[in-house]
């Protein structure tokens, strides 16, 4: 049995505390009134650095948006004088107020999504009756333990949105569906059969409930498998439940991406968005499995894992990186090519105000992994996989960042204490949840009928360390 070392426990708790302080600082430094927001912006402008230009961009952008709203709401273009300035200040104030919430939300969604996709990957391994991955089952199960705390925090964020403690979801604002109200938005009103607060909240809770129910069930029954000796009865039950979960997962994952991410831009829609979110989280999930596996193996906790298992994980990292790029580009190129204004605004906002992260993400998520992990030998060298994986994980954090931030904080984005704090906070929770769960069960799933095959899994052109050509048979 693996022992959750005191050092690692201290590290995770330190990360949680440090992260919580960062998050608290983010909320503390957010403006409480429009006047404070003005002061912050004026302070930024006085520096005369890049913030000044970004501020100008905001003005232009906000002006356009105001015009847009005015056309829709009043059916006539109004002159923008004093009214515009006030509206602009209000707009920036809301964006600055959204900052700490968005920082928390990006990191939360990233870690929640990774844990969820590890669970889905695990279910797929069971359903596919994969022979190679059985020795990694306990690693995957341990990572999914992180689903519980992140789900609890997600429930809190859902409640916060419903209670109007934050303004991340613009369609939740007061009056968006009340005809004649100054916030009335005909487009949101047209979608209100789906985008309404009770429906959104209930769906959110249902997704989390389904995922956590499967996790709880499969973890319990996977441990039961170890000592079952019942002719594969529990194994078959786990198989059937996993089939059902994958079905429900595909539906809930799509709807989750509409509700939690696409809902941040209520005027925009994209049909392959659910797949795109899935691909981003899937490649991150496989990378995290590889990381935890490599770490635990280096501690001697996974005696059955050999270089071929690492090689297979790296192949998945490589393949899903390309898959992500395919979906990212398909979404981008279709919208760029047709250039329909209602769709294009999404990328205009990202390309104007998030150029560096938007472009760097493609380098980190596609070019780097493709060049690093193309070589078959490199895929079985742990430190290569770790280097590739670090870039992939940062790249997909940036991906989630660029999905969420432009909708909630617009040009007011930065990567500061609140964002870093949120990352560390959830990283601490992840480490604690994962390794304490791994310490609670036998690291080898003894009852699985494919265990023997998995222990002898061998990819043909790999010389495992300490092997000669005589071992290749």
């Amino acid at each position, binding site marked *: 049995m693996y022992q959750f070392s005191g050092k690692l426990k201290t590290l995770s708790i330190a990360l949680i505390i440090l992260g919580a302080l960062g998050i608290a600082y983010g909320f503390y430094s957010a403006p409480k009134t429009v006047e404070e927001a003005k002061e912050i912006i004026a302070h930024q402008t006085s520096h005369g650095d890049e913030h000044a230009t970004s501020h100008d961009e905001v003005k232009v952008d906000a002006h356009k948006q105001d015009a847009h709203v005015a056309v829709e709401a009043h059916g006539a273009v109004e002159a923008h004088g004093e009214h515009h300035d006030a509206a602009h200040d209000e707009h920036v104030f809301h964006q600055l107020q959204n900052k700490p919430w968005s920082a928390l939300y990006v990191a939360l969604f990233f870690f929640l999504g990774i844990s969820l996709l590890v669970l889905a990957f695990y279910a797929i391994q069971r359903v596919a009756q994969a022979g190679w991955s059985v020795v990694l089952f306990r690693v995957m199960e341990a990572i999914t333990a992180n689903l519980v705390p992140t789900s609890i925090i997600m429930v809190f964020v859902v409640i916060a949105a419903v209670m109007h403690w934050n303004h991340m979801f613009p369609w939740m604002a007061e009056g968006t569906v009340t005809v004649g109200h100054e916030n009335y938005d005909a487009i949101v009103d047209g979608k209100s059969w789906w985008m309404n607060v009770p429906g959104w909240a209930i769906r959110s809770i249902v997704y989390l409930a389904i995922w956590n129910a499967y996790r709880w069930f499969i973890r319990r029954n996977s441990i039961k498998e170890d000592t079952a000796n019942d002719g594969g009865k529990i194994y078959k039950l786990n198989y059937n439940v996993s089939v059902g979960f994958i079905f429900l997962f595909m539906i809930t994952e799509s709807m989750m991406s509409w509700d939690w991410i696409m809902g941040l831009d209520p005027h925009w829609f994209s049909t392959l968005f659910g797949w795109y979110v899935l691909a981003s989280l899937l490649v991150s999930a496989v990378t995290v499995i590889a990381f935890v596996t490599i770490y635990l193996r280096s501690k001697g906790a996974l005696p059955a894992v050999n270089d071929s298992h690492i090689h297979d994980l790296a192949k998945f990292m490589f393949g899903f990186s390309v898959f992500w790029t395919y979906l990212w580009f398909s979404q981008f190129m279709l919208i760029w090519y047709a250039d329909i204004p209602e769709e294009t605004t999404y990328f205009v906002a990202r390309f104007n105000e998030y150029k560096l992260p938007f472009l760097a993400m493609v380098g980190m998520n596609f070019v780097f992994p493709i060049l690093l992990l193309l070589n*078959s030998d490199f895929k079985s060298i742990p430190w290569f996989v770790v280097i590739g994986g670090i870039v992939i994980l940062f790249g997909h954090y940036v991906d989630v960042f660029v999905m969420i931030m432009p909708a909630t904080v617009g040009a007011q984005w930065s990567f500061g204490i609140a964002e870093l704090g949120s990352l560390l906070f959830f990283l601490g929770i992840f480490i604690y949840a994962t390794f304490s769960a791994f310490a609670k069960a036998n690291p080898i799933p003894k009852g699985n009928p494919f265990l023997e095959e998995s222990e002898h899994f061998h990819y043909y052109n790999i010389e495992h360390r300490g092997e000669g050509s005589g071992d290749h048979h």
Partner: protein
Amino acid sequence: MESSKVIHAFYNDDEVLMDAVKAVKAEHLHIEEVFCPFPVHGLDKAMGLAPTRLAITAFFYGITGLCFAIWMTNYMMIQDWPQDIGGKPNFSWFANMPAFVPIMFELTVFFAAHLMVITFYMRSRLWPFKEAENPDPRTTDDHFLMEIPVNNNEAEITALLVKTGAVEINVVDKH
């Protein structure tokens, strides 16, 4: 000349063949060739063959294809006749790059795949109307054949091969 003689040892099981190859290698005898009806996993490792470099050539062919696609799209669409087609920006190649990605991808794959296959044919000397080189037709069906050159040690090799479970051993003159 003695060295033009070879021994053909026949086996009817790939497991037995693998053990035989290892036994022959252990005696530091040179194996000229092994003929199999299907790929035997690990045979190349047991024989000590160098790994293939075909994948490396494919990588460079792919890069060639990518460069060709970039050159072609840039020359045709940007340099030679930059027409306004449906409002697509043609001020520079980068401005219109997303529209070129599908052809860049396809040409990369096309070059990598076809040139690699042609390389494979050339390196393994395969072409239509090529005369088949199998020393015994049974090696395409259910027998495995190991060919060992003889250097005045015919009896010694034969004794070793009998021990490894060969079902038939022939000494053949190679022209």
